[in-house]
């Protein structure tokens, strides 16, 4: 083999391997950003799922209470003929009431989670094909933006609607009525004071759970915005730029969960992110069809 040709092939091979290695680090950073987006998004959907379930929750008895109810019911029945299959059916349905509704709600959220899992899966082998997959990576940009805007939408839905812990409120009303019916004044006042305290605690718990879910949606939206930006500028950034961008985004997410900023201020900030995305000609080309169809 010609000596100079051999040297050229050798140099090119070394260059190829080292170029792969440098791009690989950048792609690995992108993969980490995608994983972070998935983690934050799944957590936000789980918190939302919990809130939605709590607001449609039916009070369920434990076994001991169920036995007591059946005994009380049997004692209250005058006509022995009414103890029949329909009555047993009623107790069965009563014990399971709300389970199918909760399962169906969980399914809604599981379906939503699939999208975030699938998005992250796109990047599973991105580091191994970093030189040949640029066009495909670019195609993921639209989905990063849609999934981000979706989280901003969810945070607004949470903010605008109330999510009461239904079953807890039912039990609270029962305890209040019980306290009010106490004839001994001293004991009644004590019971009322306790139940009032429990009510305030419940109200605070409802609010803090909702706030936490909103913040988690915004944290997830921030990591989505981050990966959308990384994909957009992927060719221009070096490894350090990518790592810095992820680090800055993580710092911002930490600020969100730190609790110093008010939910209303955070939502305003993210509305501006949403508007920037929707009004930026660059994003508009990518999103045009989706945004239009969503506004219909």
């Amino acid at each position, binding site marked *: 083999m010609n000596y100079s040709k051999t040297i050229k092939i050798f140099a090119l091979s070394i260059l*190829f391997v080292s170029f792969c290695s440098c791009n690989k680090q950048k792609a690995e950073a992108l993969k980490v950003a995608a994983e972070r987006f998935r983690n934050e998004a799944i957590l936000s959907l789980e918190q939302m799922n919990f809130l939605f379930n709590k607001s449609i929750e039916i009070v369920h008895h434990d076994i001991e209470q169920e036995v007591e109810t059946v005994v009380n019911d049997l004692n209250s029945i005058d006509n022995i003929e009414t103890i029949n299959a329909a009555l047993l059916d009623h107790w069965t349905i009563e014990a399971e009431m709300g389970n199918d509704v909760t399962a*169906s709600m969980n399914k809604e959220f599981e379906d939503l989670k699939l999208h975030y899992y699938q998005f992250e899966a796109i990047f599973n082998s991105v580091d191994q094909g970093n030189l040949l997959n640029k066009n495909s990576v670019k195609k993921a940009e639209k*989905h990063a933006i849609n999934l981000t805007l979706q989280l901003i939408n969810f945070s607004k839905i949470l903010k605008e609607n109330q999510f009461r812990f239904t079953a807890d409120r039912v039990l609270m009303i029962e305890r209040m009525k019980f306290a009010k019916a106490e004839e001994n004044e001293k004991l009644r006042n004590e019971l009322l004071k306790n139940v009032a305290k429990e009510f305030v605690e419940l109200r605070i718990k409802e609010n803090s759970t909702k706030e936490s879910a909103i913040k988690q949606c915004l944290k997830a939206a921030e990591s989505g915005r981050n990966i959308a930006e990384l994909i957009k500028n992927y060719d221009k950034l070096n490894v350090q730029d990518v790592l810095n961008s992820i680090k800055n985004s993580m710092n911002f997410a930490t600020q969100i969960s730190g609790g110093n900023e008010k939910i209303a201020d955070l939502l305003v900030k993210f509305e501006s992110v949403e508007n920037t995305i929707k009004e930026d000609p660059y994003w508009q080309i990518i999103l045009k069809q989706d945004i239009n169809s969503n506004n219909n």
Partner: protein
Amino acid sequence: MDKDAQMIAVMSNALINLQVKYRSSNITDRMQIRPELEKLLNRFSNYQKLLLQEGTISTDTDLSEMETIKSEIDKAANKQQLLAAIAKTISFLITKI
């Protein structure tokens, strides 16, 4: 408060009040109230699902598109690994010449 928020608030209170009534009733009344309670629970749950769908952007088509992108990237990874292996082999062979 917009229409959705008002509706959610009304349904939430109705569900709480009806449960309180249900639980304090005797068996005969409970058997009569139960279908009403189940109906309200389903309506409330469906309304919440609609609310969720209002905020949803990503569709089933998007999900399939993401699957396609993933398989494209996986294919690129396989090709590149093969090329890298060839390049390494060439480098190795040349050092041995």
